[in-house]
């Protein structure tokens, strides 16, 4: 009897072995380890690693071993069936079966789609040449590392988080690196002009070149199909041996679409991370929640927590989008941003700038609440500012001292001055 009970545990299948999926399993194991018979289908051939830490691996500061979150023992230890190197190709929602490229038929009672995103390649002529790479997984990192052994000159297209981390890694590997960016400031979705200028100054000092306000027209190649250079819309050109495209990501929704789940830009989910099929959940970068897409780890982990809670049939968690904070992961460079940091007519701005240390802080306040923060150089108080943003604390009583951080702010004791959140 007992064996039958065990065998008849509902089957929970994960498509995707990235950080969102694995975190959901971890959260679920904490809540109820025995509830499901869990399987994970992963395209990569290794366990689960911290994708955010690929930059230090590229920079040679860490190895893949350093950034493993869960190795294969972990799957075994928790009785999880791990289909590594498998690609899910179809979902039969009626029969509740996932098919894989190698022909496996994996039944499920509950299915979690954690398929992540795919790098976006700008469709310029030459984008499919050899040595045009993206920066998404360990495979990409290994490909870049291999090229650094043979080549000298690299261009990174895109001055966002991934682009700069890639440029930094390649520079650390001894490459001559040029970042090509269409906007006039770096990280223009995360930083304001001043902090972006400081960041650029610091990266330039480490030897990285920049072509700002520059749009790529085409990628040139030789007869072997290898990259030889870039041509830009303004007619200028740059000789390079390799190109990294870091121009954003697109939610990976092909599988979901093919089985008829409702998708827009991402897989549509409700507040408990269920898709339009109640047996199928989706989390992480592949989802679209109330119109919003996700590219940062923090909301993904929050989704994992909510999804696990629901899978454990506790039903008390709900995903509520919060302001997001960004940290750039380049050793020696501290940049932080959170919330709405753009100046508008109806918000107020406090700035602090130490021009010698290049410490810059900007806080954006609306209706006596902190709604955004940009920090460069000294990011120590980023977490606290982020809390204040999320908790919508009335900062008026400490406004004079706010930018100097938690240690310099004492809330007045008078009752009328207590923060709204208290």
């Amino acid at each position, binding site marked *: 009897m007992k064996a039958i009970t065990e065998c008849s545990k509902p089957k929970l299948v994960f498509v995707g072995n990235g950080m969102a999926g694995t975190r959901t399993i971890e959260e679920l194991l904490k809540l109820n380890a025995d509830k499901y018979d869990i399987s994970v289908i992963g395209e990569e051939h290794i366990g689960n690693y911290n994708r955010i830490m690929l930059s230090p691996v590229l920079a040679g500061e860490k190895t893949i071993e350093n950034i493993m979150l869960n190795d294969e023992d972990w799957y075994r230890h928790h009785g999880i069936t791990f289909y590594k190197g498998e690609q899910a190709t179809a979902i039969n929602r009626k029969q509740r079966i996932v098919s894989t490229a190698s022909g496996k038929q994996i039944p499920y009672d509950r299915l979690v789609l954690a398929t992540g995103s795919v790098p976006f390649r700008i469709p310029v002529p030459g984008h499919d040449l050899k040595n045009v790479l993206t920066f998404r997984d360990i495979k990409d990192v290994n490909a870049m590392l291999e090229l650094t052994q043979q080549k000298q000159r690299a261009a990174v297209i895109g001055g966002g988080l991934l682009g700069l981390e890639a440029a930094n890694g390649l520079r650390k590997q001894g490459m001559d690196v040029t970042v090509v960016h269409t906007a006039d400031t770096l990280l223009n979705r995360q930083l304001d002009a001043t902090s972006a200028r400081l960041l650029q100054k610091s990266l330039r000092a480490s030897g990285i070149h920049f072509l700002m306000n520059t749009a790529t027209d085409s990628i040139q190649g030789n007869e072997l199909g290898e990259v030889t250079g870039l041509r830009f819309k303004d007619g200028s050109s740059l000789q390079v041996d390799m190109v990294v495209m870091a121009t954003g990501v697109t939610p990976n929704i092909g599988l979901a679409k093919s089985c008829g789940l409702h998708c827009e830009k991402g897989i549509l989910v409700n507040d408990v991370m269920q898709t339009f099929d109640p047996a199928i959940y989706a989390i992480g970068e592949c989802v679209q929640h109330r119109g919003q897409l996700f590219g940062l780890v923090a909301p993904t982990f929050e989704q994992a927590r909510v999804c696990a809670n629901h899978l454990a049939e506790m039903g008390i968690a709900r995903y509520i989008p919060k302001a997001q904070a960004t940290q750039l992961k380049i050793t020696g460079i501290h940049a932080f941003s959170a919330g709405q940091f753009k100046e508008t007519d109806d918000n*107020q701005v406090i700035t602090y700038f130490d021009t010698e240390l290049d410490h810059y802080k900007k806080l954006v306040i609306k209706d006596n609440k902190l709604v955004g923060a940009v920090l460069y150089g000294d990011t120590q108080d980023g977490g606290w500012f982020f809390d204040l943003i999320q908790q919508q604390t009335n900062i008026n009583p400490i406004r004079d001292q706010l930018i100097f951080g938690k240690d*310099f702010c004492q809330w007045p004791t008078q009752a009328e001055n207590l923060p709204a959140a208290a």
Partner: protein
Amino acid sequence: MANNPMMNRSTCAYCGVGCGIEIHTDTNGSHSVKGDNLHPANFGKLCSKGTNLARTLTQEGRLLHPMINGLRASWPQATDYVASEFKRIIKEHGPDSVAFYVSGQLLTEDYYVANKLMKGFIGSANIDTNSRLCMSSAVSAYKRAFGEDCVPACYEDLELADLIILTGSNTAWCHPILFQRIKAAKQQRPHMKVVVIDPRRTATCEIADLHLPIKPGTDVALFNGLLSFLHEQGKTDSHYIEQHCDNFDAAINSARNDGASLNQIAQRCDLPTADINRFYQWFAETDRTVTCFSQGINQSSQGTDKGNAIINCHLATGRVGKPGASPFSLTGQPNAMGGREVGGLANQLAAHMEFNDQHIDQLREFWKSPNLARQPGLKAVDLFNAIEAGTVKALWIIGTNPAVSLPNASLVVRALQRAELVVVSDCIASTDTTQHAHVLLPATGWGEKDGTVTNSERRLSRQRGSVDPAGEARQDWRILTDVAHAMGFGEHFPYKRAADVFREHAKLSHQNRNSPRLFDLGELADLTDQAYDDLQPQQWPIRAGQGTPRLYGDGRFSTDNGKARFTAVRCQGVSHPVTPEWPMALNSGRIRDQWHTMTRTALAPPLNAHKPEPFVEVHPNDAARLLLINGQLARIQSPWGTAILKINVTDSVRCGELFVPMHWNNQWARGARIGELVNPAVDPISGQPESKHTPCRIEPWHPQWSAVMLSRENLPLPDCQYAAKIKGQAFYRYELAGDNPLDTTQEMMATLAHAQQEPTIRYHDAQQQSLRCAWLDEAGLKTCLYIGPGSSRSVSSADRNWLASLFTSSTLGTLERKALLSGKSPAGVEDCGRTICACFGVGENTILKAIRQHKLTDASEVGKHLKAGTNCGSCVSEIKTLIAANSP
């Protein structure tokens, strides 16, 4: 000076106590000052100002060479210019068209030459002194009562008395060493009683057995009441009165008319009847009674009468010049007494002689003076009125700052602007007065001056020059002598050194010894230069090689018939009473650690710490009624001027009255020149102004902006409504507020701080109009500035002491630098160390502390405590390393 360490005995630069000091000069030429154990005024003790004297021996702000109309000149050029201009104006308009305005800071020798030049050779008595503002009422009172300006008491009397009355004297702050002597005596002899009569509950009340917070201007009534009481109670000494005094009946009749009963006196003086009764009883039953009086009595439109009302009570009880029993005027300045000896006031001649035919003849003969002045000249307030009116055209100001210190100071400034010729001799280059000078003459400062001074107990002491004169500075007597030569009076001014002047002065004092005048230095008239240098402190008159501690103890006075004279006085109240329009009474005075117009004390950082900013003291009831908030600013207006000061709410002042310090001026502040508000009423006899009572009104002043700045550099004060500059150790602090719009102010301030230089660190909250900037260089913090709107909390709460401390260290620590523009000390804030968790900003030190404190063994436990590592997880491996290395 010399490379060998040396020590000079000298006298302190400040009040009339005249403490002896030792100036030590070490091998590298730096100076230190300590009290002279051998000097009988202080026996080695010094007050805060005296202790910090060495810090004022700085070249900072000194006037270093002569200037004519803003251009540097040589001494011969300057001397000739002054002489020829004076001669021209005298020739055109007569001798009374020129005047000298001198100072109780001058040494006796300086004073003597100035007085001789003006009265004896220019031929006018238009020489007056800032002592006019200080003790001229006491001089007049003594002269009326005793026939001569003689203080009958000595300091020892303060230790011998059984009752000490301190009236109109904040002795604790203004004559601190005497206060300490009284305090020590009271501890030794606990039955000694101290009565303090002062509208304010000052620091002096610390030792008071009874404080009478008298209504201003009613002192005559109080002492007239005392005289009546003594008479009625049969406590007067009728034998003494009969043998040694005149005019008692008139005095007692007059006194009775001021109030027949204690209740009437109590009502008049606004004091409890029981307290008055207690005071009168104590006075009646205590033979050894000393009444010390100072500016609270003297600075009054009835100051002379007040002095006489006091002296009357002492005469009626025979308590004059006896051990532990005298009326005792405490003088303000170090050499006010010396100035009186040589005739530094417009209404006296040299050596205690008067403007009468006999004295004029004697003096003319002694000086061989061609045209000795025959009548008194203009007293200070009248003098500046005359300059403003254009009748006096040339003025030589020596060692004083009338643009700050005189009442109705705006008129003084107008007068200086109007005068044809203003010559200023001073040791300081930039004062409110030097700004108006056509000719500036650099004089030696206190540590460089050489000569004699006389203190409040008639004690003559040497002030010995111990420091080389700064730049081209010269002794004042010499500057005057050179001008006298250039004017053609050379043969009468043959002085080569101070001793030459002193000998002549001493000789003059000994002329015509058949007169009853007591002032006599005849025995010192033939001192050798060496003996002059070695002169020991002694009290005049000097007879048979001995000084004289007390005068008139035998009942013989300086009058022609040898009798003292009672003065019939009636209480007249103040000259300008309060009115519904001007409902508050403004009282002005000194504070503990500043002197006069701060030209010297403001240079010593420790002296600026006690009361760093100009303030107004307001009673809590008035503050509540008028919405005046402690620490904020108030505008005070009188019919004569306006000031803006920091509000200090205290019940040490009477309701309806305000107290303001007299020291601040346009060099160290804006809007705090109190002289501008003070009414120009003067005592009709002494000419001393009524600086203790001016009707005024006070209201809150709400600035558009306020600011505090600390800078390594001494910067000019901006032209805003309120400003105070405070010198500290290696920095200057600027407290500022204005009513112009904040936009332009921010520009102005940034320019002021470091012309056009971008700040190193800048904080800006545009919506709150809060701007904070810091300028740094390789030597550390150069300037920091905090500006906010109104009476901004972020400005007022900036921790000035902590900011000040940053100027003495050469570099700023990481935390200090981060905290700098917050204005708050990072004390108590821990340096969290290198950032480990970038997502939550958790530093290495914080993590290590948590690991040790909570004995953490796993990265997830660290996450539970500190959140570190719980977001992206990038730092988990580092946290693990920290745990491995540090867990128990």
